[in-house]
């Protein structure tokens, strides 16, 4: 039993924190302008923060531990300052990258991973459709066999990194009659003919992230495009989302933690009725509950990450962590705003941005309700 980070993990966290702190002055403008921070990708890559859990010996920053815990630490630190940066990294490195690492052929890995690790190629994960959200198996995008390759037709929505991505991991059915057993994963170059990117989605939060719909019209892809086997798509997607959920949990933990620090700092500085408001029981209760929820979020996230690193079944742990941390992020952003009173409602203070950013963590990569069902199923199966 050990509840303390190793010096190596602590050093990686410090590195991520130092990078994130340099972003701090820029985030308000990125959010206001809904501007994708393309210029930060090379530095993230150079510091080993873009693909922190890829076990590649020659990847940048390979002096640091390269495991799931490392990934969680990096995402938490990025999300303290910019949850949008965290999701850009998570989609790229986990949803796409971990799928390639787990299911890719040697040729596919060689073709894509080094460029992704350097930040030259950004990945995006195209699963969700208008009529297929939590029920991903109901997707309609179709992959028709055409000689050695396939022809894709359909529409994907809410694709994070949809604009700048050079690689799409697209889920399509090879035969709608097969239901979810027909779903197959494809690696589609971002510049393939027939792909039309929709306009940027106007989202409530995570505004610097580039989220949009993709239209596929007779998009021809080669024999080397299929990731895994025919009909293995749901397995690829669920495996990716399992890791992705640890990323969202870490992202949400970062928001929850930042809100504690902001609230404590404000409550120490703000005086009313002749004393710091932190000394009032009413404010103290807000601070205490925030700190407990932050610690719970972090412990559950680290528990899931370390279980994965030991090669254990971790899907229920990831579901539980993602659910708890996302609820903590939302609750803490709201409590932090409450601690700030009217000042929290002022856009320039940045707390309302955290509240908007936090909200999606309860929705994407599996809603809280889907996580709860997963947690309950595991409980029912494991208790005799």
């Amino acid at each position, binding site marked *: *039993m050990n*509840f303390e980070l*190793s010096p190596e993990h602590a050093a990686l966290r410090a590195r991520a924190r130092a990078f994130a702190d340099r972003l701090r002055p820029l985030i308000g403008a990125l959010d206001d302008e809904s501007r994708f921070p393309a210029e930060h990708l090379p530095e993230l890559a150079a510091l080993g923060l873009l693909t922190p859990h890829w076990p590649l010996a020659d990847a940048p920053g390979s002096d640091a531990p390269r495991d799931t815990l490392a990934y969680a630490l990096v995402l938490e630190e990025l999300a303290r300052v910019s949850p949008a940066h965290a999701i850009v990294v998570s989609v790229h490195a986990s949803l796409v990258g971990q799928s390639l690492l787990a299911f890719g052929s040697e040729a596919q890995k060689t073709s894509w991973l080094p460029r992704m690790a350097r930040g030259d190629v950004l990945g995006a994960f195209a699963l969700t459709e208008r009529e297929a959200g939590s029920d991903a198996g109901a997707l309609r995008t179709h992959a028709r066999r055409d000689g050695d390759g396939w022809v894709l037709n359909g529409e994907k929505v809410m694709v994070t990194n949809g604009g700048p991505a050079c690689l799409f991991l697209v889920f399509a059915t090879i035969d709608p009659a097969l239901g979810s057993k027909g779903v197959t994963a494809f690696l589609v170059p971002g510049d393939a003919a027939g792909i039309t990117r929709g306009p940027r989605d106007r989202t409530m939060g995570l505004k610097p992230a580039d989220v949009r719909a993709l239209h596929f019209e007779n998009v021809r892809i080669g024999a080397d495009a299929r990731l895994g086997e025919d009909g293995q798509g749901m397995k690829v997607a669920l495996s990716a989302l399992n890791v992705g959920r640890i990323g969202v949990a870490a992202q949400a933990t970062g928001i929850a933690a930042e809100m504690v620090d902001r609230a404590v700092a404000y409550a120490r500085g703000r005086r009313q009725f002749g004393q710091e408001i*932190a000394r009032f029981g009413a404010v103290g209760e807000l601070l205490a509950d925030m*700190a407990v929820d932050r*610690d719970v979020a972090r412990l559950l996230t680290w528990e899931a990450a*370390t279980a994965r690193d030991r090669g254990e079944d971790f899907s229920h742990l990831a579901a539980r962590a993602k659910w708890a941390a996302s609820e903590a992020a939302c609750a803490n952003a709201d409590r932090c705003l409450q601690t700030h009173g009217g000042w929290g409602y002022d856009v320039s203070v940045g707390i309302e941005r955290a509240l908007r950013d936090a909200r999606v963590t309860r929705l994407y990569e599996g809603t809280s309700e889907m*996580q709860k069902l997963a947690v*309950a199923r595991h409980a029912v199966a494991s208790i005799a």
Partner: protein
Amino acid sequence: MSLDFRLGEDHAQIRAMVRELCEGEFAAQAARWDQETIYPAEAMAQLAELGFFGLLVPEEYGGVAYDAVAYALALEELARVSAGLSVMISVHNSVCCWPIAKFGTDEQKQRFLPLLTSGTLGAFSLSEPGAGSDAGALRCAARRDGDHYVLNGTKNWVTNGAFAGAIVLFARTGPETGNKGITAFVVTPDLPGFSVGKHEDKMGLRASVTTELALQDCRVPVANRLGEEGQGFKIAMSTLDGGRIGIAAQALGIAGAAFEEAVRYSKARETFGRKLHEHQPVAFMLAEMERRVAAARLLMMRAAWKRSLGVPHLIDASMAKLYASEAATYCAHRAIQVHGGYGYVKEYPVERYYRDARVTEIYEGASEIQRIVIARELVRQAEAAEAAHAQEVPS
């Protein structure tokens, strides 16, 4: 060593040993102890025999010297079958034996610890009718008279008070009010002027006995004073620090038992043609319980782990106690809901869990006190971080 929240082998063995013990006769008797308000004398004797009366006492005084993690595991396992049993063991060890071992003189340790570890029950007496969370308001007076103190006052909510052979008791030797001037004593029931008052008729923890104590010109030898005059408040707070982890463990035991009972029931019972857990609202209740049990366990383990290493754990212990106790009442409440009408009758154990859980949010520092402790620590930590930063970066 890398991060790892799992139990080590030694701790896993201790847990398995206590679970096996508890799931036999104790589990079979727990409902009867509760319903008939029976002090489980045989179980307590068996526990004493097996070393549970000296869990935190060094071996030289007859204890088994568990670390804080092993100790928490033992309390959790006891509470899974009987929270009443668990609280008696917790009070005996955490807040009676521990302060004597920590603050006692060699002579006091020789005199009291072998007695306590071999089966004489211990108690802790801080609260008074007018001094609960505000312990500094206590009024029980201790007036020095030669080589004795003369104690006068009433104490209440004393777990184990009726049968205790040694009671760590706090009284005022100094100024009229405040935390200063409080002194700790080891009071024994043979002292003249000591008497046990009424037994409380409690909502839960009915296997444990809680009483008032009356001190009427009770003459306590100076040799029974624990620590120095005026040190009592510090001793009380330091003792409660460890006690909080114990209550967290107890609450976790109740929470886990309630959760598992709810899962079992949901697998056995069918409604509308399906198992209960196949209905989403029921599944959600199970998930909410599971998450709280898991989080309470990690918070408790973190606090116990830090305590076992001797590193500061004030905020960790308060978080663990706060969260686990609220998890316990939540889980017991939802377990009844999952059981429906069957949860409301004594044929099933969940209504007992509900009654037992409730006090964990109250005793050894109410939830409101834990939140104050946590908030103060957050402010203190922020101040310390700021000071460290100022030293690193001279302006």
